[in-house]
């Protein structure tokens, strides 16, 4: 081995504590990267495998009623590989021992066998046998929520007739990975079920023999769904066809994609931040290393080592540390990635998980971290390369000390000699002190990023369900109903307040952008659903025009005053233009609002309500629910607490799982940064402190000088860290915006407290380690050797 390599390894061993700390920081970045990329890749792969093996369809259409013979015509559309017709219908459930109203989507299966498209994956039990008209398969999430297993029974009101059903199987479907009731924002596994049942029985119940009302298509590989949709719509239109959609508008697929996209954003943001911190740290450590080795560098050059060789020497050191970090990070990333992917598998209810660590991810991990390592050290290495040997040979001029600001003001009497030394030291090297502070500040900042989401989500819920949606129960009717129903509801005992609302499915268009959502008609002066402006003040809806969620306006590229095209997807299905009257603030969903009467006018109907908002006395809740459930007009009931719980269980979970893992990694990074800072301070000052010991200062005093300086810098770093954390948080929040919800940039005091505590505890531990070393300082050794 060459002497230069020996030097490398010995010095690496000598700085092993620091090297390890840097490696841990790099490992944190790599682990986050590998964890998120491999998890994301695995989830996508798993989804695609599930889609493929269970033949997820490409096109989805529903209609009123069409004869089975139409199937042939559809199959003849070029590019259509397979057509499957079905019957789909809604039902109200009556679950033994469960009082809340629950609804179900009934989907037909070909008698006695699995579907051709969107094939069920059976978790338990079997499919309904042909001719057994009470047998059903239920979706797993619903079964789990109620503890159902094959053999259990429940009742459903199907087309007005109550029927006893027997669960024979529990299944997953590629079509319902994300099981959400149309119109709802979040899944509710207790109150929304998907039931699969033999087609002939469903046909019988709905008088659909030889007919269908739902259609799914598989396309040939080279066909694009967009080319089929128009022809299909034309074919289905006479039969009451709603617009057919491709996968991108299929609810389950769309929401799943949104979640995976969000994961992808986090997979980008977190590692970027973490590796940035690692690069920063390497920069600090190497700047110092190279300035302490300037004479060695000069000697090497004097004896004929080329600049390039000297540079390479330090690059090798960087690479060794980086690779150690990469190795640790890979191992950690794979472990975390697998755990995280398993959590997501359970969360999304994939039947299996194909965890992959692709070479792509490994390469990205290596390349990005090596890049960060080199980027962080390039300035220091360049200095080593450029260092003129004659210059470096001269010992560094002694640092210039000036009286500190305090002393110039004559305040020195207030401070002891050691305290004055601390202050002078900080003032003498403002850049170095600032860099140390910056390192700690970054540690503080990344802790905030991992941590803020939980409280921001709480805030979001408080706004959404505290200020805006203030009803206890939302009742939706089976079809738009006259306002007289309001009086019936008002008459129920325990109901304080009833406010009707109208909601219509629409497609909004502006320029070339379109978006499907619900246009909500809200009564003027209502108290249960208040519309808020950007400052969270209650906004009165104008008498004409539509108010859009700010995010929706941005998506459509429209501003107040512009004309919005509204394609009403129900009733008489008209196309109208409405001016945008204003923008509103909503953190969840993307809705458009109109004054209820204005909406009725727009729809060309008299007063009609799609549902009503209720404020009730909690004591009467069960009784009210029971009565509502028996009412034939009621299609569904959402209660606020359930909605909140559902949100927390679904979307929030995916974010919080990620945030949890990130916080652990951020914590390790924070510690690495702080420990390193302490070690650098010790290394830089040990000579000086040893001299002080020789001059008669006590251990306590020199400990105070060193640790006091560190403490002062740490305290100064915290506010900077808060600013950095806020900046990073804003970056993350922006990146995570989606039409499901936007996390507000609200950082609760607890977040500051958390990062402060982690920083202080890390500092304390680092301080103790350094103090121990300081106690064992070998005076002779330190003073004999030059750095």
């Amino acid at each position, binding site marked *: 081995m060459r*002497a230069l390599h020996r030097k490398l390894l010995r010095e690496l061993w000598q700085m092993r504590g620091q090297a390890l700390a840097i490696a841990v920081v790099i490992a944190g970045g790599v682990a986050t990267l590998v964890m998120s990329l491999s998890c994301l890749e695995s989830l996508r792969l798993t989804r695609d495998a599930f889609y493929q093996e269970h033949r997820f369809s490409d096109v989805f259409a529903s209609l009123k009623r069409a004869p089975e013979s139409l199937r042939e015509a559809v199959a003849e559309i070029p590019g259509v590989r397979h057509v499957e017709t079905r019957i789909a219908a809604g039902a109200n459930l009556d679950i033994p021992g469960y009082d809340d109203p629950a609804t179900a989507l009934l989907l037909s299966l070909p008698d006695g066998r699995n579907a051709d498209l969107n094939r069920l994956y059976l978790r338990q039990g079997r499919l309904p046998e042909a001719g057994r008209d009470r047998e059903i398969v239920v979706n797993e999430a619903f079964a789990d929520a109620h503890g159902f297993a094959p053999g259990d029974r429940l009742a459903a009101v199907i087309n007005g007739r109550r029927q006893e059903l027997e669960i024979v199987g529990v299944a997953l479907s590629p079509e319902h990975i994300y099981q959400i009731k149309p119109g709802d924002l979040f899944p509710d596994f207790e109150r929304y079920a998907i039931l699969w049942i033999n087609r002939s029985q469903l046909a019988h119940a709905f008088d659909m023999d030889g007919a269908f009302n739902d259609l799914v298509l598989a396309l040939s590989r080279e066909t694009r769904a967009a080319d089929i949709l128009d022809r299909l719509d034309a074919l289905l239109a006479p039969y009451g066809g709603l617009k057919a959609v491709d996968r991108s508008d299929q609810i389950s697929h769309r929401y799943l994609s949104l979640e995976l996209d969000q994961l992808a954003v986090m997979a980008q943001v977190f590692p970027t931040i973490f590796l940035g911190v690692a690069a920063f740290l390497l920069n600090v450590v190497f700047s110092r290393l190279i300035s302490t080795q300037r004479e060695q560098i000069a000697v090497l*050059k004097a*004896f*004929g080592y080329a*600049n390039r060789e000297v540079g390479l020497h330090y690059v090798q050191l960087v690479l060794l540390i980086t690779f150690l970090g990469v190795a640790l990070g890979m191992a950690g990333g794979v472990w975390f990635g697998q755990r995280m992917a398993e959590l997501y598998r359970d969360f999304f209810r994939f039947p299996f998980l194909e965890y992959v660590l692709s070479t792509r991810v490994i390469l990205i991990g290596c390349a990005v971290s090596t890049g960060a390592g080199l980027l962080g050290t390039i300035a220091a290495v360049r200095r080593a390369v450029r260092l*003129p*040997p*004659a210059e470096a040979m001269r010992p560094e001029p002694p640092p210039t000390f000036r009286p500190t600001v305090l002393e110039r003001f004559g305040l020195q009497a207030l401070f002891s000699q050691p305290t004055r030394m601390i202050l002078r030291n900080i003032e003498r090297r403002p850049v170095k002190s600032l860099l140390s502070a910056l390192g700690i500040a970054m540690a503080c900042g990344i802790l905030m990023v991992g941590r803020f989401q939980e409280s921001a989500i709480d805030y979001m819920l408080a706004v959404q369900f505290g200020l805006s949606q203030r009803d206890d129960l939302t009742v939706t009717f089976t079809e738009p109903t006259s306002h007289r129903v309001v009086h019936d509801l008002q008459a129920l005992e325990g109901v304080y307040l009833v406010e009707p609302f109208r909601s219509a499915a629409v497609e909004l268009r502006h320029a070339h952008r379109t978006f499907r959502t619900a246009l909500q008609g809200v009564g003027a002066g209502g108290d249960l659903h208040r519309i808020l402006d950007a400052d969270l003040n209650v906004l009165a809806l104008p008498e004409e025009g539509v108010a859009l969620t700010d995010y929706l306006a941005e998506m459509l590229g429209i501003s107040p005053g512009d004309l919005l095209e509204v394609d009403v997807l129900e009733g008489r299905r008209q196309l109208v233009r409405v001016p945008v009257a204003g923008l509103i603030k909503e953190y969840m969903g993307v809705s458009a609002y109109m004054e209820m009467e204005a909406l009725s006018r727009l729809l060309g109907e008299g007063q009609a309500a799609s549902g009503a908002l209720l404020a009730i006395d909690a004591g009467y809740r069960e009784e009210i629910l029971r009565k509502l459930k028996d009412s034939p007009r009621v299609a569904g009931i959402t209660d606020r607490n359930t909605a909140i719980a559902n949100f927390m269980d679904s979307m929030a979970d995916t974010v919080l799982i990620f945030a949890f893992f990130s916080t652990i990694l951020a914590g390790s990074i924070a510690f690495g940064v702080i420990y390193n800072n302490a070690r650098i301070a010790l290394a830089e000052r040990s000579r000086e402190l040893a001299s002080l010991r020789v001059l008669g200062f006590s251990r306590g005093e020199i400990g105070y000088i060193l640790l006091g300086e560190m403490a002062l810098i740490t305290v100064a770093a915290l506010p900077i860290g808060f600013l950095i954390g806020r900046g990073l948080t804003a970056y993350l929040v922006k990146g995570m915006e989606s039409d499901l919800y936007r996390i507000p940039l609200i950082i609760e005091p607890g977040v500051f407290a958390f990062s402060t505590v982690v920083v202080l505890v890390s500092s304390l531990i680092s301080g103790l380690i350094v103090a121990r070393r300081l106690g064992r300082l070998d005076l002779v050794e330190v003073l004999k*050797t*030059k750095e």
Partner: protein
Amino acid sequence: MNRHNAPDATVFKARGLTKVYRMGEVQVHALRGVDLDLYSGELVVLLGPSGSGKSTLLNILGGLDTPTDGQVFYGGLDLVRAREADLTRFRRRFVGFVFQFYNLIPSLTARENVAIVTEISDDPMTPEEALSLVNLQDRLDHFPSQLSGGEQQRVAIARAVAKRPAVLLCDEPTGALDSTTGIKVLEVLERINRELGTTTVVITHNAGIAAMADRVIHLSDGRIGQIIKNQTKAAPRELSW
């Protein structure tokens, strides 16, 4: 360029060397027009008060630094015009340095401190040979922190001579040593100059050392004062310290 030139051949030729350091507003004239020839195989002692420009001159001769004005030639190589890479090659092949503060690499043993230079030389001694030349054959695996000052300086000399350089440039090699140790170090330099024919320049503050030189060059305030040619050279042992 031969490694060992014929006796009396000019090795270094400097004309009108000036070096000006700028330190903000002030200009420091370290060298103010130095003309100098150094001959193959001679041992030159460079004397002068502190700040007179000795180190500056030595650094320029060794290709560590370039003058502000003037010319320096090493044989046919123009050290002023030479590119960075040429200077590096020049130092690597022809020059051995001994510094006042030893400048050993603390993380390497005596043997390795020598090896780091022999590894990039064409026809070096082994580190063991070089270290026995300075009587340190039983300190091979000691780290600098485990050696005395004199021993460290001898390692530095071994490191400088191990590659059999054509010129050996020593900046106050005995500056930090007591007389006995200092004399040991000088003996080594003298032996190497004699046995290997290495052109040697030794900077010192100690006028006593001048007696061992072929020529003594006095530098003051950036200029050459006088050059004295010794008729007889004294052995280091006989020097009055």
